[in-house]
Each structure stands twice: as structure tokens, then as C-alpha cells.
């Protein structure tokens, strides 16, 4: 998913002709081009991995709007990330339904296992743990999203398995 692209805050970044064509089609679906801002930001984040300033500038230039307009939106919505995260984002819901079904115990277990606190990334750059609000899947509490994929009724063992598999892959193991 995270293609290797130079995403230093200063480097120049571009959309491919294919992406520009997709953006043109997106804009055509709305009464005004500004409506395409969220979809284009999603697209940019998917491609560049996160939204550093140079990518935000690129989005502003592509939609012909000010950098301020982009910044305002990027900072308002929690799914837009201005900083690099681990390759696997473990987003643990701790809201009502999940909390009542052991989400905090699960979160603590994950933090202990990975040796990091909520909001931090492991030294090998593989995992970031965050605590998120109700994921809209409370019937499957506790819920953990791993890079936008929902995992429901998650146990501490499930997370251990996922972590071991990811680490096995990294070391070239047959995970």
C-alpha cells in the first residue's frame, strides 16, 4: 500500500497522469470542485502513506485552492495523518461497547507486548498503537482496526498472533 515515494516535507511530489485523470472525474461529480477535497486527500494519503506539507501543497495546487484550506481540513479530521506512522496501525476502540467488553485490558496487553505507549511507534517502525472512538461495529466488541481493516471480537491472543506473523514476515519467515 505504501509505495516508496519521497515524502520528506520539502521534496517535490507529483500525481501521476492516471491520478490526475481520476481527480478530474471526481471533481465532475460535485457542484463545485472543493467538494473533491476529502476524496483527493484520501487518495493522496493512500499513495504517499501520510500527508506531509509538500503533499498538502500538491493537493492545494491540484484543486486550485489555498494551502490554508487544505490544512484546515487535514487538521480537523482524525483519519488524515500529518506524520509517518508504523507500517501497521493498530487502532483500538475503547468506547462504550468495547470498554464493557475488555477493550482497555486488550489495549494494555498490546502496549505491554510491543513495549510502547498509546500513540507511539515501535522502534522497528512496524507498529503504531492508537486509541480511537466508536468504530460503528460495537456488536463485535472489542474492535481493532488494522490499517482500515476491521477485526472484531479481538482477544489478546489474536493480537499476539498478528504481531508474531508480521514480525515473522519481516525476518523472512514463512508467516
Amino acid at each position, binding site marked *: 500500500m505504501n509505495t516508496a515515494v519521497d515524502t520528506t516535507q520539502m521534496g517535490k511530489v507529483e500525481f501521476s497522469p492516471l491520478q490526475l485523470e481520476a481527480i478530474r472525474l471526481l471533481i465532475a461529480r460535485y457542484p463545485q470542485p472543493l467538494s473533491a477535497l476529502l476524496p483527493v486527500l484520501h487518495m493522496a494519503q493512500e499513495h504517499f502513506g501520510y500527508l506531509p506539507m509538500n503533499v498538502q501543497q500538491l493537493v492545494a495546487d491540484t484543486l486550485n485552492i489555498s494551502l490554508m484550506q487544505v490544512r484546515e481540513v487535514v487538521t480537523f479530521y482524525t483519519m488524515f495523518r500529518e506524520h509517518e506512522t508504523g507500517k501497521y496501525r493498530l487502532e483500538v476502540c475503547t468506547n462504550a461497547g468495547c470498554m*464493557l467488553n475488555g477493550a482497555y485490558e486488550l489495549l494494555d496487553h498490546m502496549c505491554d507486548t510491543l513495549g510502547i505507549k498509546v500513540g507511539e511507534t515501535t522502534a522497528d517502525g512496524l507498529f503504531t498503537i492508537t486509541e480511537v472512538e466508536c468504530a460503528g461495529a460495537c*456488536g463485535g466488541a472489542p474492535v481493532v482496526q488494522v490499517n482500515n481493516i476491521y477485526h472484531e471480537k479481538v482477544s489478546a491472543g489474536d493480537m499476539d498472533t498478528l504481531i508474531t506473523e508480521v514480525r515473522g514476515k519481516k525476518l523472512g519467515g514463512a508467516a
Partner: protein
Amino acid sequence: MIASDPSKVTAICFDRIHIPGQNTLAVAQKNGAYAFLPTVLNEFDSPKIISEVKTSGLRGRGGAGFPTGMKWSFVPRNTGKPTYLLCNADEGEPGTFKDRDIMRFDPHLLIEGMIMSGFALGVRDAYIYIRGEFLHEANVLDAAVKEAYEANLLGQRILGSSFSMNLTVHRGAGAYICGEETALIESLEGRAGRPRFKPPFPAVEGFYRSPTVVNNVETLCTIPAILAHGGEWHSKIGVPNSAGMKIFSVSGNVNKAGNYEVPMGTPLRVLVEQYCGGLQHGDVPKVIIPGGSSTPWLGAEHYDIPLAYDEVHKAGSMLGSGAVIILDETADPIALTRRLAHFYAHESCGQCTPCREGTGWLERVMLRLEAGQCNEQDLVVLKEASQHMAGRTICALADGAAAPILSLLKMFPDAVRSYLAENKA
């Protein structure tokens, strides 16, 4: 198949949800999707549809319970501006998870509901605003929309009729407030989701200042059944003033949390014991949150309450989106309140001072209370701050933030006092 005898109806929105492959057009059509659409497009007109929806007694399933037919009749005609239809699929209220199941398992039901609703309202462009986290559901919807275009169920001159409508799936990006209809509109216009003052209401001045109808997923998914069977038929399901079936999302301390579609007026105890496999511990709930985290709590004495708008209102709460959160005897209401206080402080859009400052205050006091660092005076602050927030802001988020705090203080005064500093030393 939905029964034509209203007393025998077992499901409306979830009628075809368990059929494998129902998300594809071929399977959906084999099971009756779009079957009645040609009749609607060729033989019905806008006044007839709106009148059927009014007769049906359908009330909005997104939380406020506003009568759908009445909302539609407020849309001015011949303004020279386009009319927009926006489906609210933001589903962010803690406890609510019903729209997700419709969208991932039966996306064509929503598309069909939107075509019929769009036809009634003279809509040319419709949008589904889906919460950003629902990436899978957005992809399922996108695929279904694509199939619908290819089958001329969307686009130009739908099924050879004179009606044309476009439909676009639009992802949000993680902000609870974008479920509030005017914030949703702001967000869809490409801005931060900050609610607008009302009036003007969206029906008159909404998306790009044009007449706009915002309806919840479940609301729109009820329209095909209403038009196929008649408003009268729908009005006979459920109980007076709460017509129809309703999906209840039940979560918390029950054995089988999940979505259950039952007739309005079904007693809560029946829902919990017959559908949800009962409570995890004990015989009666400690707390019942009947309509999502923003609704006031009820106690065990309401375990038999019929789940209908008026009955829940009379008991002092709201049916909301039908998100029932159950706490059993093992749950800690203070910890839950602290967690919800964090939620509202995090999600406040910040433009009204009572909400921005108030939600922050409430969270900080709750954190100190839980840590055993509060005194009697802090409880007064908690209560007064909550009372000062409710009803004094642009949108209802502030009321929602106050609800758990006021409920906790009212229902568990002794437990709260036992947390005060003097009792913790």
C-alpha cells in the same frame, strides 16, 4: 419476502441481508430488488409518493425521529436551484452499528431507496456520505453503484423513464460531528465539519445553499417497502406514533450483541432475553442507554419498556438511533461516564464556547473524580456545567455530552460520593 399482512412482517431493512451474494446486482434482483421500481417511475408521481410516506408514519431513523414525509414536504419546488438528496451514513454515535450491515450486505436496497426518494423529490444528484472508517462498506457500495449504472438503474433516463439521477459515494474522514446534518453538508462541500445555525433548514438551504434532504440509511431503506405495500400497510406495523420495524443495535453486557430488526414497541426485556441471549451477569441491567451514548440513562425499573418513541420519551430518555447499550451489575458507570466525557471533548467542533469549554471541563473533572481527587464542590461544577451546556449551542452535541453526566449524578449519587477525596484517603 416481506409479508403483505402487516401483522406478519418479520423484517424490512434486513429482509434479504443474510442471503449470500446479496451485494451483487444479479442476486439482489433475483430476490426482488428493483422489482417495483418501474411501477414507481412510470405510475407514481411526487405528491403520491410523499403522501404514502406521510401515511406510513415513518420517522427518521438517524436519531431525531422527525417524520420523513413531513420533512420531504418542506422542500420548496421550482426554486430554479437543484434539489439534493444526501444519505447520512456517518454512523458515529457510540452504540450505533446498524447502517453498516445494510450497506455491506444489501447495498442495492439503499440504492433503490435513494432512487425512489430522489424521484419523489426531483433530485438530479444524490450522495451517500459514509464515515471514512467504513472503507470496506464504501467499496461494496461503489461496486453496487457501478453495477446499477451499467443496468441503467442510475444515470440518464432510468429504465427508459424520464427520470435521471446520479449517485456518488463520498467518504468522510473520522469526525463524529459530521453525522449532524449541517456539519455533513459542510464536510461534503470540502470544509471542516462545523454545524450551521438553523434556520435556514437544509430542506430550504442546504448543500451549496440549495434545497437538500438529509436522511439516514435505514430511513431510505424503508421507502421501497412502503411504496410496494402502501403507507397504510406500514402504519399498521409497530405501535401508534412509532410505526414500522426498527433495527436495534444492542451492545455492552449482553451475551449476543448485534443488530436485531423488530417491530417498534417490542419490550426491551424481550429484545435482550430472546434476541441477545440475556445479560452477561445478573437478572436485570444496572443501566439502560436506550438510543445511543447521547441519550439519558434509564434504570432497571424500565427493563420492560416498550421500545417506541413516546414510551421512551415518557421514561425520560430518547429512542435516538435505536442503539441500546446495556450495563450489567459488573459495569462501572463512573468509568463509562469518564470515557464518554472524553469522547465528547474530543469530538466537539469547538465553535460554541459552552460546548468547547464545557466538554473539556467535564472530562477533566471526571478524570479527577475517578482518581479520587474531587470534593463536593466539584460535583456542583459537574452538574452546573452540564446544565449550562444543554440547549445553548448550535447543535445537539452539547446536550449529548451532558446526558451521561447528569444521568450518573442522578442515578448513582452514593457511588459518585464514595469516589470523593475524603472517602478515598
